[in-house]
């Protein structure tokens, strides 16, 4: 869990905290944004992730990775959240890495896992097709041809899609769901970068009759749906950790401001109405920390058995982060509305993380369905 760490996990957390704060603080995002960076992330930083081992966290040791688990991924995500670090880490080193180590063929694993561990590639998951997350209803089709696949459809909100070397595409096919590895330079693939509110990176990707070899399939068609859901749940737990880190940071800055800012000849932190709101938010943060930790623990053991708690954690983290950024802006007053301070950036990023892999409404609904009502 992000709170119940053993010694080596604490070391990882401390290293990630120092690393992100020094190498990729909010100013790093600002610089990329204000410079209208073509990639939207820093390849040098991504390389440094490899040096730190962050890109290798979920890659088995046999493939040059660290062979660690989701708790460690959560620890890193939390620090990314605190610093709004733009990095292809989550799609590549969490989603793709987890899926490949779980279900990839020996050839796929050898081809990709060492490169993921070394931050030598960027992979992106292409799932969503409409504005809202609905992974159960996929319109993109994969047709089995004589010696491979033909892929037709379009995807959006493909996080880091514009810099990906390849996509992992979920498609409907006879007998189930196909998860296909598609090189970005394959014929028929068209990538359009979408500038996002949070100055992070995503793309719309069209697959227009893309032909693929038979070995593009990850796992089996029969297991495809379950595999996709497990991968998404792994991602959701880690995104929840990123939201937690973001909310923690915003709250810490807000509490600090309450202790410094004077209005009506008093520190605004003396006003009881603000105190109570801050105290309630503290409670929200603590229970979010707790359930995000529990979700990471559970998903680390078996994502299929952790569906309920993962949805609860993602929903709760989204709600808490939303409240934290809103209170952060409100308690800062006008200055919170300016681009000069960081609160707007936190608010924007929180909104994207809320949406990503399903927002609170989606996950509250899913939790009810899983719980049987």
């Amino acid at each position: 869990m992000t709170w119940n760490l053993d010694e080596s996990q604490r070391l990882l957390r401390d290293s990630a905290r120092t690393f992100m704060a020094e190498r990729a603080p909010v100013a790093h995002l600002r610089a990329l944004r204000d410079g209208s960076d073509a990639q939207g992330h820093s390849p040098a930083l991504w390389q440094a992730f490899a040096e730190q081992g962050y890109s290798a966290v979920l890659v088995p040791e046999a493939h040059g990775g660290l062979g660690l688990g989701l708790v460690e991924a959560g620890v890193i995500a939390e620090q990314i959240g605190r610093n709004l670090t733009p990095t292809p880490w989550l799609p590549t080193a969490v989603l793709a890495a987890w899926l490949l180590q779980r279900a990839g063929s020996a050839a796929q694993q050898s081809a990709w896992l060492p490169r993921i561990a070394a931050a030598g590639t960027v992979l992106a998951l292409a799932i969503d097709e409409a504005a809202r997350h609905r992974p159960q209803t996929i319109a993109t089709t994969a047709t089995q041809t004589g010696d491979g696949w033909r892929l037709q459809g379009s995807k959006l909100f493909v996080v880091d899609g514009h810099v990906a070397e390849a996509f992992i595409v979920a498609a409907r096919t006879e007998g189930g769901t196909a998860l296909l590895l598609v090189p970005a330079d394959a014929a028929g693939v068209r990538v359009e970068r979408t500038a996002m509110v949070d100055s992070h990176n995503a793309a719309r990707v069209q697959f227009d009759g893309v032909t693929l070899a038979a070995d593009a399939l990850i796992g089996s068609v029969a297991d495809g749906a379950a595999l996709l859901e497990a991968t998404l749940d792994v991602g959701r737990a880690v995104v929840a950790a990123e939201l937690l880190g973001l909310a923690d940071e915003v709250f810490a800055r807000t509490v600090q401001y309450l202790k410094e800012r004077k209005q009506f000849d008093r520190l605004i932190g003396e006003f009881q109405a603000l105190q109570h709101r801050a105290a309630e938010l503290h409670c929200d943060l603590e229970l979010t920390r707790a359930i995000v930790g529990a979700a990471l623990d559970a998903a680390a053991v078996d994502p299929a058995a952790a569906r309920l708690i993962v949805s609860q954690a993602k929903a709760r983290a989204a709600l808490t982060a939303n409240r934290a950024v809103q209170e952060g802006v409100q308690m800062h007053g006008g200055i919170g509305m300016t681009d000069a301070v960081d609160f707007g950036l936190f608010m924007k990023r929180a909104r994207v993380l809320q949406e990503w892999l399903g927002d609170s409404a989606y996950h509250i609904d899913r939790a009810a369905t899983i719980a049987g009502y």
Partner: protein
Amino acid sequence: MSEIDSFRAETRAWLEANCPPEMRQPVKSEADTCWGGKRFQFQSEAQRLWLQRMGERGWTVPTWPKEYGGGGLDAAQAAVLREEMAALKCRIPLASFGIWMLGPALLKYGNEAQKREHLPRIARGEIRWCQGYSEPNAGSDLASLATKAEITDSGFIVTGQKVWTSYADEADWIFCLTRTSTAAKHTGISFLLIDMSTPGVSTRPIKLISGKSPFCETFFDSVPVPRENLVGTLNDGWTVAKYLLQHEREMISAIGDRDLPKPVGASAVERLGRDASGRLDEPVLRAEIARFEVDEAAFRAWMKMAATQARRGEANPATASALKYYGAELNKRRWELMMAIGGADALEWEGERSRDGAAARTWLRTKANSIEGGTSEVQLNVVAKRILNLPGA
């Protein structure tokens, strides 16, 4: 035919004859608004003409006295004018902080010379005004302002900084609260009118999280201001300011009523579709929207009730604070829901498809609703004290 009926007939005839057809089209964007002032670029000849004609008649400010450039109408006549303009879909000829804010203050607290000097030029849209109240270290505690107006033989020397001055970079004059005495917080403030072309005045736009810059910082570096530009009594500017703040809140709380945006539920169905039972295909989001729409309907009913009560003189003036509070929070909720409905599409920030991130920028803009014109916290304090009469608020 009664007097008011013949006034109505004349008004309609005049409007039909004088309001250019282009000025009877719905406003499409902020750019269609006519703000007037020395540097204003008219969007069209029709816009210029419409302002000129209405200004000549004093109907940009129908109820102001004629000698100050107004229309000299009584309340009933002004209502008729409003109704007839609405019937013909005439655009408002002039949007102006001079009309909305400074004018009422001058009419109440200005001396004769100030009224004759400034009001007609406001009415005709010749001078664009902005408001200099807030300061970086004041915020909700407006009266703690520090911009200094040193008293000299001929007037004042102003030094300091204002913030959140709307469109200061496009304004000609600014009305300002300044500190003329440090002896007491509220009774050491004076209300000054400052020509922004005076040397020492400069402005810098503030970039907001929405990416837009409707506000500025405005700096005063030893700016000389003649004595005749003091409105009201020296050191008693707070009285003028309070009067204007009340005015501003009423204005802001009325904004919500102007045009009803498309219902959230309808937008949601349009975008997200229905399930087999005919319901919005997102059960939890549907419940959140439906709860919001109940509150929104109730708020609309409240605004109507408050308007009726105000007309009858039955309203507590602090009701404007209650409405301002609730309306701001409601609009923030609306746009949180609109973002949820918009999903990934609403996260886009540039490009044609998203109209340059219109949804996201509006969503971010709404976060200021509960800060500008008095924070939600200040409004709740006012309600507690002035409506509920709670002790020592």
